[in-house]
């Protein structure tokens, strides 16, 4: 399953409380969502970080990627 594009609203939702609705036990992803939600970095940069993480660990995140567009 491919990742949604950077302009898909799911990424902003993930950065604004969507992480809490994401069903995952992947510690790194949970920590990343927590840090980026608290970050004051520009939203584009935070989305870029999220996408880079999903891209690198795509193989072990199929369940999480499937949820992205439904958050």
């Amino acid at each position, binding site marked *: 399953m491919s990742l949604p594009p950077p302009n898909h609203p799911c990424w902003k939702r993930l950065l604004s409380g969507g*992480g*809490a609705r*994401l069903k*995952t*036990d*992947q*510690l*790194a*992803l*949970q*920590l*990343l*969502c*927590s*840090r980026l*939600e*608290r970050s004051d970095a520009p939203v584009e940069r935070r989305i870029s*970080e999220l996408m*880079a*993480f999903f891209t*690198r*660990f795509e*193989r*072990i995140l199929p369940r999480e990627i499937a949820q992205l567009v439904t958050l």
Partner: protein
Amino acid sequence: MNDLMNLEEAGRLIAAGAVCCVAGDEAAMRQLPRGAWIGGSIPYFMAPAGGLVAHDKVFVTTLPDSAQLQYLSADEVDQVVAGGPEHGYSVMIVPAGSRAHSRFAQDASTSADALMKPTVGWVSGVHLSELATTKPVVFDGRTGQAHDDGIVVARVTLPDDRLAMVEITNIFEGDDGDVLRFETGGFEASEVLINGERCNFAEYLQARGNADGKLPLVGDFGGASLNASVRQVDVAGGHVTLYAPVFPGIDYRLARPVADYVATFRQRAGERSSEGLVFSCNCVLNFLYGNFEGQSLGATPTGPVTFGEIGYQLLNQTLVSLRVV
């Protein structure tokens, strides 16, 4: 290999060129030959037969022969992540109470790369009867030198088709009561916001029946429950010290009491896959409060029982595992 062994066996492995992470009592570690190993002082272990305290055995985790070893000073703590392999993992050991320990605990979670380059490890310690007299150390086996500050780290690069996963088993969850927030981070706190109202933290813990600190604070990190264990509650002095820093912006709750520590651990750890297990460590507070000595935890991974666990950042009262899948 993850195994508790005597010094002769460990010495033979090292002499044969194995790259290892070693945990053991300082006096035992000093008897190991020089070689491709890093280590830390600790006499507490979880073995298949159960928890034990041993001064004449060491716990050895072997790593791929290609692993690269490093010693980093306390001023180079940022290199734990920055120097990590682009595709692989790092295993680190840091002495409890050292400057490197404090700096890593407070800074590691802020690095943008920290979650892209998995880091696991542990905080070295001493027998609890020696807390006032002996400093925890880490060892660089290449030189045989012990350090009471700094970090020893092993870097492992993985093939493109393998990934490192850091997993935790935490038997604690926050209760349904008060939400605690801290305006400043750190290992110490005097004030806390309880449901938004400023309170004295030590008085609050005493009122909640946790003046002995046996229940940790449980922080909600994006759905992951991470503990900050209570080291000392000084009601007269009005402050609390912790074994891991608290962070502003995180919702904390006091942990719900666990009725059967061992059974809960067995169950939670048993839910985890052990496929590709490389490394694991558990917390000395679990060992103590759960009376793990002499008790088998079933399928729970074995390893050193430590003064703090590292899974990307400093953790408390948690089992940390690294798997390669």
